[in-house]
């Protein structure tokens, strides 16, 4: 791969790395690099969340025949920054009769779990903070922590609405985590690795979605549905169903603590889309066609992070589209969907994928000249 990629950030990053390593002791070099990465991740986290909040409000408005925020700045672009400032300076209301320690700890669980997951996402070539061999299990593990925050928030608020919301959330999360994990595992079977960077690399000429065709597409749809359900959004927003529970588990939170839940909700939506992009849609890899070197080179001029955000953006749009088209589910319909539909289909699907891979029925097996990476 010796195409020129003028806009990639890998050059800057490696320059920085060499500079630190040459001038500092290994300990301090690691320390400073770690700190920089942390700052970069947190900054990206906040900026993406703000952007998503703005985008969601705008797109929602367009779906609903409205204009959305349009007072602050051109087209209302600084609306969500103003909202952030408002949330930052808002009073954190002290509530009597709550378990103070758990009440204040709960938002951190939610936000930390989503930051941890966020760190593992490959945003572009060389833009990945954590790249474990077991990347996918790591993503599943880190995101599974969030539900504890929701449960504790609901319980410690000492509010009946919150409690019902938390219990719903617990049931919902535990169920849908299964489906999400299984559908990711389907792709692990296909690509033979759990490392996110390798999964992206393997999809150079054929996205997993197409390479694994039928089972991969089923897995993709199931992952989107269950990921959606895990983030408590869209038709699955039962834990905070404002219709009956006012705001569910975060009814009693105010100011920055509510802000944490709010940020985490949006970021989780992004994470689900980003993981789906990475695993199914080739991640940051530009569209490549084997043999068309000129075309490939043109594609490489578009930097990898643009590809990543574009693909993720499409999935986020899909998520918003679904959210604003459907009514809310009921808890038994929700569990029915998971246990009677998604999970059985998923189990059959994973078996199908295994058979397909063993029998060599993937696209790259059928047309190695077009799709396989190795000749």
């Amino acid at each position, binding site marked *: 791969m010796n195409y020129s990629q003028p806009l990639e950030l890998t050059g800057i990053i490696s320059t920085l790395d060499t500079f630190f390593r040459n001038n500092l002791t290994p300990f301090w070099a690691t320390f400073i690099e770690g700190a920089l990465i942390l700052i970069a991740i947190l900054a990206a986290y906040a900026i993406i969340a703000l952007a998503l909040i703005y985008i969601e409000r705008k797109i929602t*408005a*367009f*779906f*609903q*025949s*409205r*204009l959305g925020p*349009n007072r602050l700045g051109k087209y209302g672009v600084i609306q969500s920054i103003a909202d952030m400032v408002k949330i930052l300076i808002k009073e954190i209301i002290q509530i009597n009769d709550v378990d103070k320690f758990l009440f204040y700890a709960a938002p951190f669980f939610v936000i930390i779990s989503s930051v941890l997951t966020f760190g593992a996402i490959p945003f572009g070539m060389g833009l990945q903070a954590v790249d474990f061999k077991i990347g996918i299990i790591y993503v599943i593990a880190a995101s599974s922590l969030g539900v504890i925050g929701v449960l504790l928030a609901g319980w410690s608020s000492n509010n*009946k609405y919150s*409690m*019902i919301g938390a*219990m719903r959330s617990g*049931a919902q999360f535990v169920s849908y985590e299964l489906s999400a994990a299984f559908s990711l595992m389907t792709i692990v079977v296909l690509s033979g690795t759990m490392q996110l960077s390798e999964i992206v690399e393997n999809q150079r000429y054929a996205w997993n979605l197409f390479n694994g065709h039928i089972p991969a597409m089923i897995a993709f749809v199931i992952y989107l549905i269950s990921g959606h359900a895990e983030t408590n959004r869209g038709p699955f927003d039962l834990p905070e169903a404002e219709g009956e529970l006012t705001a569910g588990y975060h009814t009693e939170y105010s100011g920055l603590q509510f802000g944490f839940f709010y940020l985490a909700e949006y970021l989780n939506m992004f994470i689900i889309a980003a993981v789906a992009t990475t695993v199914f849609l080739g991640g940051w890899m530009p569209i490549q066609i084997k043999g068309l070197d000129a075309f490939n080179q043109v594609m490489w001029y578009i930097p990898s992070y643009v590809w990543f955000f574009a693909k993720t953006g499409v999935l986020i749009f899909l998520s918003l*589209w*679904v959210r*604003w*088209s*459907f009514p809310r589910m009921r*808890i*038994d*319909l929700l*569990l*029915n969907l998971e246990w009677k*539909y998604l999970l059985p289909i998923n189990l059959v699907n994973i078996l199908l994928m295994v058979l397909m891979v063993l029998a060599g029925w993937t696209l790259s097996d059928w047309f190695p000249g077009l799709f396989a990476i190795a000749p």
Partner: protein
Amino acid sequence: MLKFHFIRKIFFILLDTNNFKITQNIPPSGFRGADINNMNPFIKYISGIFTAVKSLLGGMLVTWRELWRKKVTMQYPENRDTLVISDRWRSELTMPHDENNEHACTACGICMINCPNGTINVISKTIETEDGKKKKILDKHIWDYGMCTFCNLCVITCPSDAIIFNNDFEGAMFDRSKLVHQLNKPGSKLREKKPLTPKGEQKAP
């Protein structure tokens, strides 16, 4: 601490499949899916999925089309110039004065009597005219914007068509006392009798 009794219950609901209503057995009237009553369970299961997905996609198509349509939001302060308020819109009670600062109110008080909730207060005073006769004329016509229910009774009962509702809808104030309007302008007086116009012309434009 009763809630834990309840929470135990919630858990059993989640486990108890008897509670799960089977909602797709009987198609409701107007249901578009295939008749799923007389099928074997597996086909029923599969066709259930497809009917559901089809209906959901149909819903998404509607929102998709909406995405590209013209938006209906009116941007109020900006559209002041083009904003059309219907002629009959009742916002503020006024007493039209002509160029001589004369109005048509004879201070008869019928509007005050007819007002259902005492929004109007007609204060009259008695003066002596040039020819020595005592005459009741209008001193103050007070109307409380904050109390008015805009039932239009005062306007339709006014025998001399002295008051009408106008279109100035921007009546919000920071101070409640500013909502109490005096309708007659200072120094105004009763218009001399003119040839009568047919009654009701002003009321129903």
